[in-house]
């Protein structure tokens, strides 16, 4: 590892020793943080997978029912029936901190209007089934969105953190150690040189 370009003085060495101390401490802290983040991430990813499997199944079932409902009635009639929904889903959102990152936290607040905003005369009961299913799966979908987003952001943060840990471990710390060693050798060398010089001078005076 390359030695840094510094003056080999005692003061510089003190400064570098201080930096090395900080770097080592920072490295330990960051490493602990990565460990904790990975632990949480694994839990979240498992939950994410479970949720996704479940919702995908339910969603597909609901959408298939909807497709069937459209197939048996006049396409225009179905469209007309649901064109003006009486419900409006909105979310109450906030930010939550997970290991220092802002992740979304959402709660569904639906307006509680009539789920079937159409006359039962023109459409098939299949449509009712499909809408009931879809309404049920919507809550789960929002939960999935929240979990998935948290996972995404945590994964990103873990990667960044790993890079920091690696930079400290493989570049910063060896470089500092090497430079400190270099300064120490230089200082020792000049000390020896001074001693030898004194001895020589003493010899010359004695002669």
């Amino acid at each position: 590892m390359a030695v840094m370009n510094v003056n080999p003085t005692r003061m510089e060495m003190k400064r570098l020793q201080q930096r090395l101390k900080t770097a080592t401490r920072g490295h330990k802290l960051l490493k602990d943080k990565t460990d904790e983040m990975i632990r949480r991430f694994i839990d979240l990813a498992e939950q994410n997978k479970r949720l996704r499997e479940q919702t995908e199944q339910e969603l597909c079932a609901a959408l298939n029912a909807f497709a069937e409902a459209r197939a048996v009635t006049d396409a225009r009639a179905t469209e007309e029936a649901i064109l003006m929904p009486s419900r409006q889903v909105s979310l109450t959102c906030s930010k939550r901190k997970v290991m220092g990152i802002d992740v979304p936290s959402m709660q569904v607040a639906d307006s509680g209007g009539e789920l079937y905003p159409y006359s039962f005369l023109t459409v098939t009961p299949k449509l009712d089934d499909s809408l009931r299913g879809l309404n049920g799966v919507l809550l789960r979908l929002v939960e999935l969105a929240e979990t998935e987003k948290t996972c995404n952001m945590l994964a990103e943060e873990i990667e960044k953190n790993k890079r920091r840990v690696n930079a400290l471990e493989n570049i910063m710390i060896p470089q500092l150690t090497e430079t400190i060693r270099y300064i120490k050798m230089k200082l020792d060398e000049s000390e020896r040189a001074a001693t030898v010089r004194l001895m020589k001078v003493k010899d010359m005076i004695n002669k």
Partner: protein
Amino acid sequence: MPDKIAVIGDKDSVLAFKAVGVEVFDATTAEQAVALLKKMTAERYAVVFIAESLAEQIPETLAKAKLQTYPAVVPIPTGRTPSGFGMQGIKSDVEKAIGVDVIFNKEDKQ
């Protein structure tokens, strides 16, 4: 704070969402989807569900969306069966964070 939910997809497959009170946007090409997503990022959308078939075509836009807290862009299946694109997303996240895919591999062995 953002508070709206939207769905992007081709009209036939996402129309059903309209009835349950979610805003539906019609898009059939990747360009349309990208333009809609861009618009939604600027507005108050918290969750955007996007049809898997469209999501597959715009990986860069999705990757960019991952970095922000809002909106959460979530691919959803719209066909008869899930295509596995959403699962692929979880898999790549795990690989990115841990290096190897511990969650899906574990199940393969069992």
